[in-house]
């Protein structure tokens, strides 16, 4: 019977096209990019072999340090924000709104599907300083405070980026974590309540530990996305003012396309890939230890 479903020709016909496209358009370019890291130049100007010069350059580059630092700072803050607010939403859905949570869930989710460019432009206008006083500054003026040039200063520009990316994604993590929270068996909750646990100790001692695996999974998804952030920052601040809000992805893009240096661009992309891998592995290992503690 095994032979009927192990027909080699059928496997080839079904799997072949996907494997071919995937290999040609993703795997090979990936390896090719690895090759680029040993060269300088571009497709228009020709390539020169450079050995490990690109890696040395990355180490000494005055722009690469801040870009790495910004990437980490952004990824940590936004991931924590997305998960914490997402989890608060999940608790709100489960313990307060209960069956009625459908409408709120649907509304809070919609920024997830909106085009990033459109959301970025909307936030640009909302946080505008001049010539039009934007929504946020009007609100501050109404409270008797001065307008703030949100996108004109590195610190406040970072705040706007973080607020926007948390606003965009918290509904998504709300839904994701909600599925983890409602999966907790009712009798466990009931037993804890009968033992006299209040809502807060119930959440702290039962709900959070039991939904911990989902929280970690959501954290891994989130940090994988935030380390690769490009669209929202490109459209909102363009990396500015100056280069103060430039993550690695954007720095790579500028180096390769505006600067015409494919070799160094690929080196930056490789560094980013290594960061993504390291972070994912690190979280996986730490959770393996944590889940042992809980059980």
């Amino acid at each position, binding site marked *: 019977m*095994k032979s009927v479903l192990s027909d080699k020709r059928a*496997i080839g016909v079904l799997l072949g096209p996907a494997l071919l496209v995937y290999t040609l358009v993703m795997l090979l370019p990936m390896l090719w990019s690895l090759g680029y890291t040993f060269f300088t130049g571009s497709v228009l100007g020709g390539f020169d072999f450079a050995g490990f010069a690109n890696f040395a350059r990355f180490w000494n580059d005055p722009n690469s340090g801040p870009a790495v630092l910004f990437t980490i700072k952004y990824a940590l803050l936004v991931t924590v924000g997305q998960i914490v607010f997402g989890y608060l939403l999940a608790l709100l859905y489960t313990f307060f709104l209960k069956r009625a949570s459908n409408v709120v869930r649907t509304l809070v989710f919609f920024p997830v599907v*909106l085009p990033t460019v459109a959301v970025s*432009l*909307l936030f640009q206008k*909302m946080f505008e300083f001049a010539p039009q006083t934007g929504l946020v500054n009007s609100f501050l003026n109404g409270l008797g405070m001065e307008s703030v040039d949100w996108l004109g200063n590195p610190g406040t520009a970072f705040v706007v980026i973080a607020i926007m990316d948390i*606003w965009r994604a918290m509904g998504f993590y709300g839904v994701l974590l909600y599925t983890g929270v409602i999966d907790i068996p009712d009798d466990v909750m009931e037993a804890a309540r009968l033992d006299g646990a209040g809502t807060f100790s119930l959440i702290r001692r039962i709900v959070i530990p039991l939904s911990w695996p989902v929280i970690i*999974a959501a954290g891994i998804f989130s940090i994988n996305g935030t380390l690769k952030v490009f669209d929202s920052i490109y459209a909102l601040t363009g990396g500015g003012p100056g280069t103060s809000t430039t993550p690695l992805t954007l720095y790579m893009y500028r180096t390769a396309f505006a600067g015409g240096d494919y070799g160094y661009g690929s080196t930056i992309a490789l560094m980013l*890939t290594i960061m993504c891998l390291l972070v994912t592995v690190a979280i996986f290992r730490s959770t393996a230890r944590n889940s042992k503690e809980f059980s």
Partner: protein
Amino acid sequence: MTNTAIASPRPLKPARRRRSVRSVLGKIPGWIVVAVLLIVFVYPLVWLVLGSLKTQDEFLNNPTWALPENWFNFSNYSIAWESTAHYLLNSVIAVFPSLAICLLIGTAAGFALEIMVFKGRNTLLLVFLVGIMIPGQMILLPLFSVYFNLGLSSTLWPLIITYTATALPLTVFMMATYFRNIPREIFEASTIDGASTLKSFFFIALPMMRNAIFTIALVQFFFLWNDLLIALTFTTDDSLRTVQVGLLNFTGQFGVVDYGPTFAAICINVFIILALYLVLNQRVMRGLAAGAVKG
């Protein structure tokens, strides 16, 4: 509580009233949170729509929360539509063929990897998974070189090909997960009844997977339609721009000067997606949560 009720039935009524008053009062903070949530998530969109109906004069002279003076001022939309229509067409031409090809070959690969029996299935699935993790920056430069050398740079082919490939890993992975829940016996039986494996795939597996395919199509549609990085890299000419790149350049073109048309352009972009989402929201939420590995 039930004990006291049985022991002394008389104080039951006032006690219950006191409890219900307390529980109503206790719910007020919760409802305030919900109200704030709704304002934070809905008001920006309302403000966007109101803005799209205002004239430049209103933008500069009236407070930003003022209602439009003429509710039927659609002139901003006609200006925005002039350029957006073409970008929309480009997006449609790039996204839908990629979606169709990706779903067909991705479903076939998922079928082969889960239902068919051969050595190395799990390794291949892992190879596809790598593609989900890798940042897009890692494949852009070699692809740009190849498209340039093949003379495809002034067409939409680079977008169609790259979209098909980048959507493929998640499609294969999700399809494999769906096929895992289907007993292999169904396909063994149909093969014994005389259908070839390919026939089983086209006439049994595909119709059975209709729902799953639709869900994945939705998820991938949002990813591809909202993409900025790939579109930005491969659309070197204004006539090739997708709706996202076009929107970004729309503000570049009119910039701070023309608020109304910019708001209208953002509105067009937002409401196409929002309409789709409002019709299919439950499905979209479930699908995106299932495809969360994309990060």
